[in-house]
């Protein structure tokens, strides 16, 4: 330790030389590994002595379980155990509402519900043994339509009726009239998250009745709470570590293999590996809610909205999952980013015997946007107005109040975003039929047109989406940041439980630490439950909320270091600044090195950080400050439609989005591209086809997602209007592109074909026969 401060000039370039701060786009630590196929996903987990678990699922949509005979399965050589509902020590699980048994208890409520588990020393043996479990079912009448579920005579999925939530918004005049009235009915099919890494995990029992679970998930602590509930164990006995996640998009918010693997591990005393194959994955996670929407807009002859009425029914399937929150979003945000003085919304979430639906990117706003954007186009046409101009006329601005009466207290650039996409250059005209290029035509190399029947259409859509959890939810994150000298170099270790699902959060955490502490070397600790909850990696919230927590923890570390320096050097705390490896006075002189101040000690701070509170809405009027932040985006789609064959080629899908502050500009663009593709997928092809409750296409052979030949290159304009209430001014990025892209594509197809097209995905026969 030096006795006196060394008087040398400060080196401000020290911090300037840091690579990978906020606003940079440093390489992701997992990037090269993933590109080279060396990243360890959950499905790659391995432990000595591990054995394999598999699930037996219900072949029925709704049935009573008369009996289960596990004898023949148990007698199979290589099988360790077979478990049924009787072996589950604790209670039900569920994200918001614990209504789902870990294994079906007395009744199965959907096609694919888990009924029994097998552990064996080879996955193949386990699968064969599972087929030998004899379950006798007695089929029950099922309800497989969301609207029918609300009829009094409908079969009941649970005691207590099929209505899960009814959200009402009543604002302004209850009997509004307007000179121009337009209305529509819209249907949205069931979309799947279609993440590429199937559900997977490894449960390792300890010798004290506890368990370590390594699992690919979105929210370690919500998982932990539910696992504890189901196993009847305290949290210290159920420790979770995040395994490599191959995409999530909401589909990993609910439990999959979690409790099953733990049950098998506790029973056998062996590490249990579980991995779903692709088919099982389609049964092993929730999907996006199919929705049935009825909308009516009233406006004056100049296109100014006077009132809106909406009735939305979300089919939640057999278990609640996050349906109530999806209803919250669909209801409060389901009229889009428009000023509407008189509003009546009735938004329902219902139980049916369809596969359970829950979180998926865009969460309730996606379905509604198809309806309100289609109706805006209809209104524009009716009053003879430009489709962009009518949106700009009615679009929200900062200082406006939305339909729940909440003040929009940061940027709301609806008109500007639309202007930006409208002003982007249009793609080149199509080549003539003599010099066509198959790859740029609908159908591609399948050679279905050389230009015949092809009509171009342009469509616009705009959206806004809440960021973070809403309606009074205690939405916080926790970060632990540690600063020490290792090998003569200042090193920061950042530890959060926030799930990295491929979006790049670990890079963001590093960037924040570098910026706040001026230290180049930032080590990201594995994500686990040894630190407090970070909340879910969903709702576009982690850069905001976990980013906020990391920032706050860095600030706490900085304060501690400076306090130490001030005591040690006997200098006023207020006169000291931490600048990387040095403590600098406010006059810019280096007064001590970090090494001097820390020695071999570490400064280690944990901070729990929350965003501004939100509030429940009034149950009768729906009024209230439900959300913490809004994110806005607009898309313009240009499509060529083979109007005779109903095939579509999206030629351009351009967008503008306000992100508040681009912490990592490359990652922002990545989110926008991926989100736009996913929204386009719902407009064109992505649907889990469910007939009478049965899933008919549980594979990537028939659940189609866009390929590189379906997705056009994008023009992307990123605005950075800082939100003064958010750390660094950030605004959630991940979801808005998924919401506005699909409706823009659908609008473009309507424009090209002149057809109403009130259902997505739009299939070829809808265009040729509709």
């Amino acid at each position: 330790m030096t006795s006196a401060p060394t008087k040398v000039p400060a080196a401000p370039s020290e911090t300037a030389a840091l690579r990978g701060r906020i606003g940079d786009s440093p390489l992701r630590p997992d990037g090269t590994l993933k590109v080279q196929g060396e990243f360890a996903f959950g499905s790659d987990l391995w432990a000595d002595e591990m054995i394999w678990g598999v699930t037996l699922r219900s072949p029925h949509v709704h049935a009573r379980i008369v009996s289960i005979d596990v004898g023949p399965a148990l007698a199979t050589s290589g099988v360790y155990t077979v478990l049924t509902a009787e072996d589950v020590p604790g209670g039900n699980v569920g994200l918001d509402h614990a209504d789902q048994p870990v294994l079906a208890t007395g009744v199965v409520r959907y096609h694919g519900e888990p009924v029994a588990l097998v552990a064996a020393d080879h996955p193949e043996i386990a699968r064969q043994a599972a087929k030998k479990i004899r379950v006798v079912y007695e089929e029950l009448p099922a309800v497989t339509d969301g609207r029918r579920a609300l009829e009094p005579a409908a079969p009941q999925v649970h005691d207590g009726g099929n209505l899960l939530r009814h959200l009402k918004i009543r604002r302004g005049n209850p009997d509004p009239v307007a000179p121009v009235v337009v209305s529509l009915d819209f249907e949205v099919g069931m979309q799947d998250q279609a993440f590429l890494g199937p559900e997977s995990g490894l449960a390792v029992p300890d010798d004290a009745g506890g368990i370590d679970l390594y699992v690919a998930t979105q929210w370690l602590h919500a998982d932990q709470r539910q696992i504890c509930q189901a196993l009847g164990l305290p949290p210290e006995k159920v420790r979770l570590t995040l395994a490599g996640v191959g995409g999530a998009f909401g589909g990993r918010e609910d439990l999959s293999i979690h409790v099953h693997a733990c049950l098998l591990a506790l029973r056998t005393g062996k590490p249990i590996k579980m991995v779903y194959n692709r088919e099982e994955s389609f049964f092993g996670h929730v999907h996006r809610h199919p929705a049935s929407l009825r909308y009516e807009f009233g406006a004056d002859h100049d296109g100014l909205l006077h009132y809106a009425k909406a009735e939305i029914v979300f089919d939640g399937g057999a278990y609640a999952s996050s349906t109530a929150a999806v209803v919250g979003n669909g209801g409060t945000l389901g009229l889009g980013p428009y000023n509407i003085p008189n509003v009546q919304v009735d938004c329902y979430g219902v139980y049916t015997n369809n596969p359970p639906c829950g979180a998926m990117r865009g969460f309730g706003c996606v379905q509604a946007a198809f309806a309100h954007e289609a109706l805006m186009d209809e209104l524009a046409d009716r009053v003879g107005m430009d489709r962009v101009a009518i949106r700009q006329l009615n679009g929200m601005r900062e200082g406006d109040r939305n339909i729940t009466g909440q003040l929009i207290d940061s940027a709301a650039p609806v008109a500007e975003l639309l202007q930006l996409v409208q002003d982007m250059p249009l793609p080149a005209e199509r080549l003539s039929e003599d010099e066509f290029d198959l790859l740029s035509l609908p159908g591609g190399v399948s050679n279905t047109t050389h230009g015949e029947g092809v009509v171009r259409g342009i469509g616009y859509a705009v959206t806004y989406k809440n960021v973070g959890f809403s309606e009074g939810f205690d939405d916080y994150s926790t970060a632990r940041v540690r600063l020490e000298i290792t090998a003569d170099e200042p090193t920061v270790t950042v530890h959060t439980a926030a799930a990295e699902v491929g979006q790049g959060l670990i890079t963001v955490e590093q960037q924040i630490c570098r910026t706040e502490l001026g230290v180049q070397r930032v080590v990201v600790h594995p994500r686990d439950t040894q630190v407090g909850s970070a909340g879910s990696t969903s709702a576009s919230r982690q850069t905001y909320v976990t980013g906020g927590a990391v920032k706050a923890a860095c600030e706490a570390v900085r304060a501690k270091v400076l306090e130490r320096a001030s005591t040690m050097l006997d200098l006023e705390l207020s006169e000291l600044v931490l600048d990387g490896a040095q403590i600098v006075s406010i006059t810019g002189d280096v007064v001590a090195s970090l090494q001097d101040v820390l020695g071999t000690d570490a400064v280690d701070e944990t901070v729990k950080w929350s965003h501004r509170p939100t509030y429940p809405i009034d149950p009768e009027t729906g009024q209230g400050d439900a959300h913490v932040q809004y994110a806005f985006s607009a898309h313009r789609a240009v499509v060529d439609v083979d109007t005779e064959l109903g095939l579509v080629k999206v030629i351009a899908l351009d967008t503008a989005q306000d992100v508040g502050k681009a912490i990592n500009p490359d990652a922002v663009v990545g989110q926008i591209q991926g989100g736009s593709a996913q929204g386009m997928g719902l407009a064109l092809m992505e649907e889990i086809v469910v007939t009478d409750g049965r899933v008919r296409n549980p594979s990537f052979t028939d659940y189609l997602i866009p390929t590189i030949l379906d997705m056009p290159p994008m023009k992307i304009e990123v605005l950075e209007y800082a939100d003064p209430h958010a750390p660094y001014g950030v605004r959630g990025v991940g979801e808005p592109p998924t919401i506005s892209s699909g409706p823009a594509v659908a609008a473009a197809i309507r424009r090209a074909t002149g057809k109403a097209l009130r259902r997505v995905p739009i299939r070829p026969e809808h265009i040729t026969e509709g």
Partner: protein
Amino acid sequence: MDFLQPRSWSEALEAKAAHPDAVPIAGGTDVMVELNFDHHRPAFLLDLTRIEELETWSFDNGRVRLGAGVTYSRVIDELGRLLPGLAMASRTVGSPQIRNRGTVGGNLGAASPAGDAHPALLAAEADVELASVRGTRRLPLTEFYTGVKRNALAPDELIAAILITPPSGPQQFCKIGTRNAMVISVSAFGLALHPERKAVGTGIGSAAPTPRRAYEAENFLAQALDAAGLWETRATMPPELAREFGNYVRSAASPIDDVRGTASYRSHSLAVMARRSLSWAWDDYRRAA
């Protein structure tokens, strides 16, 4: 499950005779999917990838003799001119990875009504050569498809090759899928004009229990072209003629509704593809004069 790996064609035929239940595997792009989904648990797999003859093509009495193990990628790269319809169909198969492994013989072995090679081969009036220790036989492709995913192979037989006459006129292939790549056909159509014989060949995919030809459409068009002297004059194709041809093709199909598409859309799209492909083929024919 045992894995038989014959080094020569005669060894392969002997193996198949000894184990008639052995499942042949070429590119494996169908077989491995079946195994992974556990739809099938054969006692033996018979690997055909070590047999050179299967992977070669040659000329046989003026026809192309395409070894059953030739991949789509090679058809595209090497046979674009000799087998244009099959090459067009090959370009629409799966992804580059699938085209690198998947074989035309495998498509026949699977005999799926949705296989993309079938309409092109039917239109070209191809024959298939089947072999066993008992000997070799050739039969028209139309006799090869016997039902949904069923074919005329005897338990001890293997597909040796496909025989296709190089075209005397233009060929076309079109396929409907609900995305622009990597998709199983909702319906497909193959067309070949045979000006030498003043004949027309067609093939329909995904719109009947088996791939099939639209004989009435072929006869209708061949006669109409002949009656109007169009084979000789190469005058423009009357639009009504193309339309009527499309209607005949539509009538030849017996499609069903399934998760990929409706029966009525399949019928409709066949009529459109037939009409359009005829106009392209006819334009080619006129230009070739």
